[in-house]
């Protein structure tokens, strides 16, 4: 239950008087609060700084250290205060959680210190409120990555039992692992550089032949360049083949970007070898030579910064897309306007709208080549507007990209978007579990028979249990729920009595039956209600053991004495109330899931009214334990036989 709402519990209980005249059954006894001194101030001394708060405030969260009796361990008799030897600054936010119900994460605090404090005081970090949760998660992720980085650095020491292939792969990926790898790394880097320089120098005009035409060096020293090219390509080919051999997953390796770059870098050479003397395709061959420049991308294996740049551009795809889109829009608009503005002037260069595109782009990026200029007044006005807006449009998304790059560069972040999704799901699941705990707590405590002790007809139920069972039962009672919870449960119990229906676990409900003929239910009240505990435990254990729905309903029919028809109709449930509180979210989902799985049986089963002896037979097998994992299965065989004997 939320914090402040606990303060309204007395109000809700008082308002329950509104149900009393309507109810037909007697109400259960209210739980008494034994310690009357509730409104006292307690002093929490945290490393010398004294915090004071009401005891009520701390009692709002009974499953934390301060809310439970665990704090008594820290009670100092002489000074009559609770002393904690922890950080007082962090304690502020923890105490504020009790006061306001919201846990905030202070930005200036270290994340691991904060986590430790939360763990000490028994507060789960998932309930950090949304205003601070993003920050918390980011910092936590950073921290984890930093730890993982440290771990990986340590892991780089030689692992035993690595095959030759794995060693090679590790050598390729982390050059600093062995000297051989380092040598290889530098050699390939050198040859990449040589290759690129060769490609560049090839086109420089060097020297002039007597026929007055500067020819590029490539054509002058053909053999030399050819030899260089061959050498480089051989090295690259060998490297590629070695990587292909060493890769743990060859298919994945062949699909990766780096290997595609490798292939594209060396392919033109081989294609050139194959089709040397064919005049028609020489044009295409020349085009292929362009791809040799891709060799420069091989440097990205050697440079971390290049890789980060590539990754940044990939991760800023949305900003880049926005930039491109807005630029395109602006270009089209301004080109159209300029075309129509300059249409009238003589010898205008703006011959068509696509021709004006060039002017617009050059103006918006503030290049201003000057090969196309507007001559009319309107053209000049719109041209100036164009250049001003160009500055704005381009300047806006760029800082986003820059900050992205800086963040990635500093964190050296891996692609963990998939991990983030899983974490979000896990967080929601944890919150749901802790929240549904409260809504199911009433049903659970009923199942555990805790509420039975509050029943006005007490002895009948106690007789039913075997002595062993009742001992466990008493121990159950001793493990008390807090006063707040017991009051809340009493309130829900009163509502049950008013409407003459009981709250059940949604799983039970969706195991799938709809009691249509239980109108006689109220007339059986004391005995039947006291058997509810047994029914509940029996069936809950059954559901948890995932037995077929058929046998579960059989057990139900045995334990209930009035039943004329039994339907399993999962598919006909009414649509859910849309105004249900969010606490029910999980239960709805799980409910519908179970419905689909077990809603196939549609036979009508007629049961016989079973004498009470059956119950006593069933009950020794079903002591109501807190954890449903341990108990023995009741004998299903006999139950089934009984039905078929009809």
């Amino acid at each position, binding site marked *: *239950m*939320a*914090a*402040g*709402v606990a*303060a*309204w519990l*007395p*109000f*809700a*209980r*008082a*308002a*329950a*008087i*509104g149900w*009393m*005249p*309507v*109810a037909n059954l*007697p*109400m259960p006894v*209210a739980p*008494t609060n034994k310690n009357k001194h509730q*409104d006292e101030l307690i002093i929490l001394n945290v490393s010398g700084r004294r915090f004071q708060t*009401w005891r*009520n405030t701390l009692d709002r969260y009974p499953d934390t250290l301060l809310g439970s009796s665990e704090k008594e361990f820290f009670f100092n008799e002489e000074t009559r205060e609770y002393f904690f030897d922890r950080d007082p600054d962090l304690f502020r936010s923890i105490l504020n959680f009790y006061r306001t119900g919201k846990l905030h994460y202070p930005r200036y605090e270290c994340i691991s210190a904060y986590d430790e404090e939360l763990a000490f005081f028994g507060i789960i970090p998932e309930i950090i409120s949304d205003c601070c949760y993003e920050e918390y998660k980011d910092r936590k992720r950073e921290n984890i990555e930093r730890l993982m980085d440290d771990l990986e650095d340590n892991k780089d020491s030689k692992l035993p039992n690595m095959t030759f292939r794995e060693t090679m792969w590790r050598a390729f990926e982390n050059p600093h692992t062995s000297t051989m790898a380092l040598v290889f790394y530098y050699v390939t880097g050198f040859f990449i550089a040589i290759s690129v320089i060769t490609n560049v120098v090839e086109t420089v005009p060097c020297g002039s032949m007597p026929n007055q035409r500067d020819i590029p060096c490539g054509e002058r020293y053909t053999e030399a360049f050819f030899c260089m090219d061959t050498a480089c390509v051989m090295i690259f080919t060998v490297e590629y083949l070695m990587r292909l051999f060493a890769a743990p997953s060859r298919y994945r390796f062949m699909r990766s970007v780096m290997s595609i770059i490798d292939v594209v870098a060396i392919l033109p050479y081989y294609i050139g070898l194959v089709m040397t003397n064919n005049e028609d395709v020489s044009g295409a061959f020349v085009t292929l030579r362009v791809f040799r420049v891709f060799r420069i991308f091989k440097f990205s294996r050697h440079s971390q910064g290049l890789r980060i740049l590539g990754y940044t551009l990939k991760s800023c795809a949305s900003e880049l897309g926005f930039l491109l889109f807005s630029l395109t829009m602006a270009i089209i608009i301004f080109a159209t*306007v300029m075309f129509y*503005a300059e*249409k*009238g002037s003589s010898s205008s260069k703006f011959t068509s709208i696509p021709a004006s595109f060039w002017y617009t782009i050059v103006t918006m990026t503030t290049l201003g080549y000057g090969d196309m200029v507007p001559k*009319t*007044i*309107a053209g000049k*006005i719109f041209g100036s*507007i164009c250049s001003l807006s160009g500055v704005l449009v381009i300047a806006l998304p760029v800082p986003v990209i820059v900050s992205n790059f800086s963040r990635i560069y500093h964190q050296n972040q891996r692609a963990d978007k998939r991990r983030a999704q899983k974490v979000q799901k896990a967080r929601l699941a944890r919150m749901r579990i802790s929240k549904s705990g409260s*809504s199911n707590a009433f049903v659970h405590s009923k199942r555990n028979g805790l509420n039975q002790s509050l029943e006005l007809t007490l002895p009948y139920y106690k007789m039913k249990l075997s002595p062993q069972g009742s001992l466990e039962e008493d121990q159950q009672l001793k493990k008390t729920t807090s006063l707040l919870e017991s009051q809340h449960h009493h*309130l*829900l119990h*009163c*509502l049950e009595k008013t*409407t003459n*229906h*009981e*709250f*059940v*676990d*949604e799983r*039970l*409900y969706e195991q799938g039956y*709809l*009691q249509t003929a239980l109108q006689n239910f109220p007339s059986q009240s004391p005995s039947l209600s006291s058997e509810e505990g047994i029914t509940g435990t029996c069936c809950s254990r059954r559901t948890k053991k995932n037995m077929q729905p058929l046998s579960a309903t059989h057990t139900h029919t045995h334990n209930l004495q009035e039943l004329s028809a039994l339907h399993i109709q999962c598919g006909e*449930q009414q649509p*859910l*109330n849309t*105004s*249900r*509180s969010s*606490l029910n979210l999980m*239960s709805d989902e799980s409910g519908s899931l179970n419905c689909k799985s077990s809603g196939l049986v549609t036979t009508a089963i007629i049961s016989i009214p079973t004498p009470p002896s059956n119950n006593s037979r069933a009950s020794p097998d079903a002591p109501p334990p807190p954890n449903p994992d341990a108990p023995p299965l009741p004998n299903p065989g006999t139950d089934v036989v009984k039905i078929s004997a009809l």
Partner: protein
Amino acid sequence: MSVRWETEGLQTVGIVCLVIMFLKLMHLLGLIDITETDSSDSDLELSTVRHQPEGLEQLQAQTKFTKKELQSLYRGFKNECPSGLVDEETFKTIYSQFFPQGDATTYAHFLFNAFDLDRNGSIRFEDFVIGLSVLLRGSVTEKLNWAFNLYDINKDGYITKEEMLLIMKSIYDMMGRYTYPSVRDEAPSEHVEKFFQKMDRNRDGVVTIEEFIETCQKDENIMNSMQLFENVI
């Protein structure tokens, strides 16, 4: 000729654009003030409505709580509603949290109307405390009166079957779906029938306050349960 018109037209358009942009820039900079209708409304909405309760002594006189109890109640109240007023939505949210399996909003609506004595759409602390005082410290007659007031939706002094049906449905709504036995559609109306059989002495189809109090005083269960919440505070 048409080309010349086009050029001149575009020229005009260009100049007009420039002038407008210039004016907007001036307005933005605050140098000139183009009177528009927005400005002043937004300020009013920022101020929240706040209410301070009457003094402690006055409340003590009006209710049967001690000073300490009033202090404790006010602390809880103020924590949840810092502005000092509970509106219906907040009330529904708070009340719904106690009944996670069902839908408590309809019943909370009726409850709200029962507490909001002056029908102004919000509960002040005085209303809250006076209501609680009746419920917890009042005599049985006062409590029955309060319950009657709750059931009588239009406050005309009579509980009709329709009113009772609404109330009953809202109570059953609070149970939610996962009940054993499942709530059938006829359950509320059957319950209302039983209620009327018990309460409506002269069979005129409505229950008056006298019939109500008389019947309740004769029913032992009801009288017992009225004393149930004595020690809530």
